[in-house]
């Protein structure tokens, strides 16, 4: 195996002991139940203790960023669905925001609220998926079925709205393609009101569970300084105690009008990241209820701004980002004035957060590695693009 594999940065070399014993090298993935896709981690283990962990990414590389350059601006949107494929709405949103920024478009209020609804539903569904898989990695199988029960309702709502369940393609430059279908808002409200008790149910199974705490408290600590050094955003950063959330830090759409809190943790460990995500579920629910109220009070309105027939942003560049469920998702767009992006670069939170894995895993047990991969919450479609 070549020593250049991976993105891990400085990794201690294999130590040869006096007896000529050396650590076992373990190929963790790319086909492994806990790598959440095709992630490969080259482990050096001393017994079950991890000496070094080097993530090796690229198994799902599809050349998406190059592909962007061959498509017109509206045609790029379906490709963004396939980055973080469990959170397509936020991907659409981040891309549309970037193009709108370069075009200087004004988005109608109703479209802004519907976008926020889609985003927050997506955040809830993504966090539910995270909770399911993170719990199953630690051997708790039942939360998986509970969270998928609720996630199913969200996917049904998406299907009602735009016909797709995962790759939504639900936003357009300048607003939205379609308004809400009749009765949709009532269904969303019923689900959202119910969600609180469902979150309590997940917490009953895990939050005060002795074994859950033993497996997560103190595991995979990543302090605020190290988060900033690596560029880590999202729940891992907030669990380290820094209340940095794009929705508040660099506000977009009408988030400033909405009342919600940014949950933070103290200990920067896996348990705090769990708590932060659970709290975010509750905050998203709170935002959804407020949006439901606003949309019910303003049942009609424009959903698309004044968009030219052919989208040709002026030559120049723009960066816009949203708070995706995984962290700061940004698009950097360079335009040469044509109808296709000259260059479109994605700032994928999964990839950037994954960089911290070797640092978080070193010295822990193999069992902790799955907890740490789970707690970073990666989607390989976004890591590899």
């Amino acid at each position, binding site marked *: 195996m070549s020593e250049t594999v991976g993105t891990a940065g400085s990794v201690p070399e294999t130590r040869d002991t006096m007896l000529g014993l050396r650590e*076992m090298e373990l190929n963790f993935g790319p086909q492994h*139940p*806990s790598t959440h896709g095709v992630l490969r981690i080259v482990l050096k283990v001393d017994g079950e203790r991890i000496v070094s962990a080097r993530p090796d990414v690229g198994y799902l590389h599809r050349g998406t960023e190059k592909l962007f350059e061959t498509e017109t601006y509206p045609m790029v949107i379906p490709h963004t669905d396939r980055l973080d494929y469990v959170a397509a709405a936020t991907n659409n949103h981040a891309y549309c925001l970037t193009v709108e920024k370069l075009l200087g478009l004004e988005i109608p209020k109703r479209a802004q609220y519907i976008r926020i609804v889609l985003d927050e539903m997506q955040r809830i569904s993504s966090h539910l998926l995270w909770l399911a898989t993170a719990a199953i990695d630690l*051997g708790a199988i039942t939360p998986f*079925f509970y969270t998928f029960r609720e996630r199913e309702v969200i996917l049904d709502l998406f299907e009602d709205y735009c016909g797709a369940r995962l790759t939504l393609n639900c936003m357009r430059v300048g607003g939205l393609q379609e308004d809400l279908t009749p009765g949709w808002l009532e269904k969303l409200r019923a689900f959202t009101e119910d969600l609180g008790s469902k979150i309590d149910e997940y917490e009953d199974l895990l939050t005060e569970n002795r*074994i859950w705490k*033993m*497996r997560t408290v103190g595991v995979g600590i990543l302090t605020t300084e190290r988060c900033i050094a690596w560029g880590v955003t999202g729940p891992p950063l907030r669990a380290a105690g820094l209340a940095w959330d794009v929705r508040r830090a660099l506000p977009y759409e009408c988030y400033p009008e909405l009342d919600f809190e940014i949950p933070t943790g103290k200990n920067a460990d896996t348990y705090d990241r769990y708590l932060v995500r659970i709290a975010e579920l509750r905050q998203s629910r709170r935002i959804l209820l407020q949006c439901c109220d606003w949309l019910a009070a303003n049942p009609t309105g424009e959903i698309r701004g004044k968009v030219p027939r052919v989208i040709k942003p002026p030559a120049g560049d723009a960066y816009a980002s949203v708070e995706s469920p995984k962290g700061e998702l940004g698009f950097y767009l360079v335009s040469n004035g044509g109808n296709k992006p000259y260059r479109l670069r994605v700032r994928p939170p999964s990839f950037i957060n994954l960089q911290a894995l070797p640092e978080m895993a070193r010295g822990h047990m193999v*069992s902790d590695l799955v907890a740490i991969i789970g707690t970073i919450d990666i989607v390989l479609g976004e890591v590899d693009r």
Partner: protein
Amino acid sequence: MSPTLAAALEGAAKIAFVWACVLGAVLPNLIWVERRMAGLIQDRPGPNRVGPFGLFQAVADILKLLMKEDVVPMYADRLLHTVAPLILLVPAMTTFAVIPFGSTIHLFGRDISLVVADVNIGILYVFALTSVGIYGLVLAGWASNNKFALLGGLRSSAQVISYELAMGIAAISVFLAAGSLRLQRVVEYQASGTFLGFLPLWNCFPQAIGCLIFIVSAFAETNRVPFDLPEAEAELVAGYHTEYSAFRFGMFFMAEYLNLIAASAMMATLYFGGWSLPYLHLTGIFGSLASIAVFAAKTGFFIFLFVWVRWTLPRFRFDQLMNLGWKVFLPLSLLNLLWTGALVLWGVI
């Protein structure tokens, strides 16, 4: 009929009865119960297609395993790879020999003690067999020539040996109280009186700590959640049986469930009065048959406990498991031994 022939027939009949019950009735139904219970706990139906209520699901599963391709990895040790599941399965099937499943029944002019072999080293036999079973896990892990399987085998040997110690010491207290290693005698002792005047003399009352240690250790011995580390699928893919397929895997699967049934039966026997009912002494042939039912009900309760825990709890980490075994359970079981000794000395029990 010569007494030797009669004894041989009696033994054969008892073996046939126990295996028919365990392999024919309890094992397939247990698989069904586990999956339906999982469905119930997880808000989904569970298997409900094969036969009434999906009852034949286990049969279908076993048939499927029989028909699958039997793959042996190229660099595996073929001999050990074949023998390992057998080493695990055979002890699992034979532990039932010493567990009394009922009182004495009077049939054909003979008093038949309802235990296949009422040997005077009962519990030692059980511990010896479970220790042999570990070789199955270790060899399976080694013979597969797979690092994940090897780690699984390593974990299982460390885990089972550590917990057997605590379990054994907890069990010593039981025999201290009963004054015999024979399991039939242990049950008779528990049926013989009361503790503190009103509680049945079941060992779970005077030796509550020992009982708890035994139950938790039994979870570890049978590799069940929260101690299912040897096959922790999230970490080790499938642990020691990663490289097993078809009926070789089926043998591991069966052995695991048989061990679970045996562990439940041992809990009922050692700590919860076995086939006896508190305050009641059933006699006659119906009393004997009732004792079998009582034993089945108690065992069933512990099987249910195993299933319930499996679908509720996360999994321990390896070092935490070892800490629990050596630093908590071992001292506590010694304390329990001291306490039971004191109770016996003062004549409380």
